[in-house]
């Protein structure tokens, strides 16, 4: 192979003038994490509500939930981001569109909201599966005790369902982190984009991508470990994953 390896490249100053190439990659990592966390808050909040809607007895509610999931699940994330970023400001009233276009950090907000909405459909499916996996007796017992539907969900169904959902939710959170890389197409300079920029400046393509790979793997390991601790901490003794 006539490729010239140079692992010390990370400590060379980057042409962006903000420090070394390593600093560049780390600032990308930080943006990846920030975007992922914001997107995850949206996905978790909205996804739980939509997932609950789909399990309600009301036909309208479950149809609304169904439509939300199908809408956000059947378009590629990249296309959704393009629609939010390029199309939305054009079809809004002029003043709003202008405000959107002039907003600072537009790629960040677009990515956080776009990825959040995209992931909310998947979180909703997990929530629905979690609630439906509970024995029917739980809901019936809650009704027999005189709890309203809201109380049944708040005190009986959701506390159990969320515990059951922890492993799939962990993978959805990991998917959210990975999906932030799609936002490089709308100009978000996250980890993959920084690795790509480093490759273009330094021509050390494999070092740059290796570093990004290692950073993604580290993030994965941290998240998986943290979630395992959380899972153990909130487990109900004697039940499913309990001690």
């Amino acid at each position: 192979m006539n490729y010239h390896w140079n692992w010390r490249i990370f400590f060379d100053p980057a042409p962006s003038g903000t420090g070394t190439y390593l600093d560049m990659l780390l600032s990308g990592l930080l943006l990846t994490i920030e975007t992922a966390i914001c997107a995850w808050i949206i996905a978790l909040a909205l996804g739980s509500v939509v997932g609950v809607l789909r399990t309600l007895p009301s036909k309208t509610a479950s149809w609304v939930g169904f439509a939300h999931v199908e809408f956000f699940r059947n378009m590629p994330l990249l296309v959704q981001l393009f629609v939010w970023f390029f199309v939305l400001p054009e079809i809004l009233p002029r003043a709003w569109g202008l405000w959107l276009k002039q907003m600072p950090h537009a790629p960040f907000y677009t990515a956080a909201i776009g990825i959040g909405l995209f992931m909310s459909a998947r979180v909703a499916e997990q929530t629905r599966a979690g609630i439906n996996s509970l024995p029917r007796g739980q809901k019936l017992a809650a009704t027999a005790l005189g709890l309203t539907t809201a109380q049944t969900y708040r005190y009986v169904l959701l506390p159990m369902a969320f515990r059951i959902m922890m492993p799939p939710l962990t993978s959805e959170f990991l998917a959210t982190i990975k999906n932030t890389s799609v936002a490089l197409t709308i100009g978000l300079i996250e980890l993959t984009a920084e690795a790509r920029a480093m490759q273009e400046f330094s021509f050390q393509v494999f070092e740059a991508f290796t570093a990004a790979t290692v950073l993604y793997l580290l993030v994965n390991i941290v998240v998986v470990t943290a979630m395992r601790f959380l899972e153990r901490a909130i487990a109900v003794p004697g039940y499913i994953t309990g001690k």
Partner: protein
Amino acid sequence: MFANFDFDVIGRSLGYLFFDGMTFTLTLTGLSALGGLIFGTLIALMRLSGLKLLGHVAGLYVDLMRSLPLVLVIFWFYFLVPYIGQWLTGSSRPIHVGAFASSLITFIMFEAAYFSEIMRAGIQSISRGQPAAAQALGLTYSQAMRYVVLPQAFRNMLPVLLTQTIVLFQDTSLVYVVSITDFLGAASKVAQRDGRLVEMYLFAAVVYFAISCIASFGVRRLQSRIAFVH
């Protein structure tokens, strides 16, 4: 709101969008699903073979692929494949690999990891009596897999495999990052050329939505029919 829309731009570029773009997308999806399924099954068999080293290597590969964003994997292979080709053919410089071959290799390698997890679950869902009976009949390991276990595993997992293929169909749009003309790439090129981002991106969204919706509806019907047979 739609007053200054130019829907004509869609009509003018339909040929390019579908004959160049969608053909690329669908061919890439089909071949990647097929290749991913074949390699994925091999990886699943490696993991279930009981041979420690083989299982570990396969497991590491799957974990690595599943922890990386597809965009990064696309970049990796885009730059790596010419060097692998050079190494394989023994030529003196990195070989030139076309856009289609490069993205096909990427998606086969990436999807193999995801398909292997599905096939692994499928193989594990077959009751232990089946391979035991096959062994009792005097079938070799490969015969037992070929004629007894894999056909059932494949059949049980068909809805999941097809759902994963729909995800793959949507994911192929990410080849946009290396400027390949798939369906979205074609739409984007027309959009940039004619300054018609709104129309082209909305149209692309509608087309992807329609195809994925119809496909997942088909998978749901298939699933209920399979469930009925059981």
